[in-house]
């Protein structure tokens, strides 16, 4: 089970208007590793996740998911292995009920009705949303939408999870529940976020992205203690490491 790795080599990406979003990014996540991807607004975090999932195609560089190099030919296989959780759960939930939404991925995998039903129930149960199965997705609270959007990805049994700002818009209690949930996962996880406290709780390793380049890659606590690095990358230490200011 050591094949759920993610490797990015010298990845470049420019937007159609010429803005360079990624400038030679290289990284490797080992099986089961949880890595925080932090950086200021516009640092390239979301673009990196989109490029890894093959949702935008980079100008140059390679993405290797468990031995499969990302290309238009391998896209289907790679998307079966990757689970992408978007920043806004509204973008992910488009079916009439929660059950239908969570079943969307497994149905596209060609599974039988019985297997789909089992996967949906398991995924909803694992995020504590089993009772929401028959509810329309647009009627859920922010925390419930986030839980269901995670279940919608888990139901596909991905090897690797890519998460874009998973805690955005959550109240403190739902955020705490999310942190517990992410900590329990055994998937390989790449979590792009501004929530450095979440990273501190969930990810032993952190990558700092600055203006499309990797500014640092190392142990989370060491990185968050490096005030000079955080200052240079327009970041601030997590709240729990800031102490009380008068």
């Amino acid at each position, binding site marked *: 089970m050591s094949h759920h790795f993610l490797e990015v080599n010298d990845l470049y990406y420019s937007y159609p208007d010429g803005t360079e979003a990624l400038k030679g990014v290289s990284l490797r996540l080992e099986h089961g590793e949880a890595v925080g991807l932090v950086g200021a607004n516009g640092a390239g975090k979301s673009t990196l996740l989109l490029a890894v999932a093959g949702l935008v195609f980079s100008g140059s560089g390679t993405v290797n998911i468990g031995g499969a190099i990302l290309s238009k030919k391998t896209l289907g296989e790679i998307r079966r292995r990757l689970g992408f959780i*978007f920043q806004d759960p509204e973008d992910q939930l488009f*079916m009439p009920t929660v059950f239908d939404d969570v079943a*969307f991925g497994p149905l*596209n995998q060609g599974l039988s009705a019985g297997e789909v039903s089992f996967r949906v129930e398991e995924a909803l149960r694992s995020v504590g949303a089993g009772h929401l199965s028959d509810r329309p997705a647009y*009627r859920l609270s922010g925390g419930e939408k986030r839980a269901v959007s995670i279940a919608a990805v888990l139901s596909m049994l991905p090897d690797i999870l890519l998460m874009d700002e998973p805690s955005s818009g959550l109240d403190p209690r739902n955020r705490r529940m999310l942190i517990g949930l992410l900590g329990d996962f055994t998937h390989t996880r790449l979590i792009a976020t501004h929530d450095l406290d979440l990273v501190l709780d969930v990810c032993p390793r952190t990558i700092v992205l600055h203006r499309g380049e990797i500014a640092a890659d190392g142990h989370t606590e060491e990185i968050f203690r490096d005030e000079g690095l955080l200052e240079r990358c327009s970041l601030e230490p997590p709240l729990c490491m800031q102490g009380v200011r008068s």
Partner: protein
Amino acid sequence: MAKKLDINFNELVSCSTAASGSSLVHRLDPRAKWLVTLAFAVTATSFGKYEIARLMPLFFYPFAMIALSGVAVADVLRRTALAAPFILLAGLFNPFFDRHVLISLWGFPLTGGWVSFLSITLRSVLVVSSVVLLSLTTRSDRLFSGLGELGVPSIFVVQLQFLNRYILLLAGEVQRIVRAHSLRSGSRRNSVSLFLSGSMLGILLLKSMDRAARVHWAMLARGFDGEVRTACPLKFSWQRDGAFVLIWVAFFGAVRFIDIPFLLFGWAVGK
């Protein structure tokens, strides 16, 4: 204006809620309901342009469906009324062009134009109310799956499915833009200048395109290949759905080919 939009947004949401009911009509296979609605529309529009009395038995269909489904009459009337401007426009000019007197009612001459205007209005109300009932008694995913199963090309079915989904998202965006305008426009909060409307529409278009791209990415990331599959495949039961279609088609056929009002009330008009 923000309040009106809130009401319309809630209207959209309540439509989806009503469609999730569990009555006999809600449980019918959507293909059966599509076929009956289509047969009803064909029957209603096939009458001659001066027919009014013979349309009356067709009102039995919407009333029966309302009774069987438990849908609120007010919901059907309100949604049918939304189409009123189009309904009235369809026959508005008939009274001006068709001025020959058909009958005289208590000494007042009634022209063909007014009779055909009334006939068109009645037929439109019938057809629109039947479509409203279809949408209020069928969940959107089943409604569109039914269309696909009836042979409508999947590209159209997928377009309709996502149009339906985007309406809610788009309504949410409109609601936010209008609310932001309303909060910062003081006493002029109920009017939006032409220039500003253009700018707001432009922002709405850009936001919609961004949103559409993100929703599409989210679908691709979960293996979307151009077909929306459903967890509960449709099952057509001949005993239930077949009987529903046969009974109603027989009724519409009887209404079309037998002059039921004359049979029932012919004696009263002395014929």
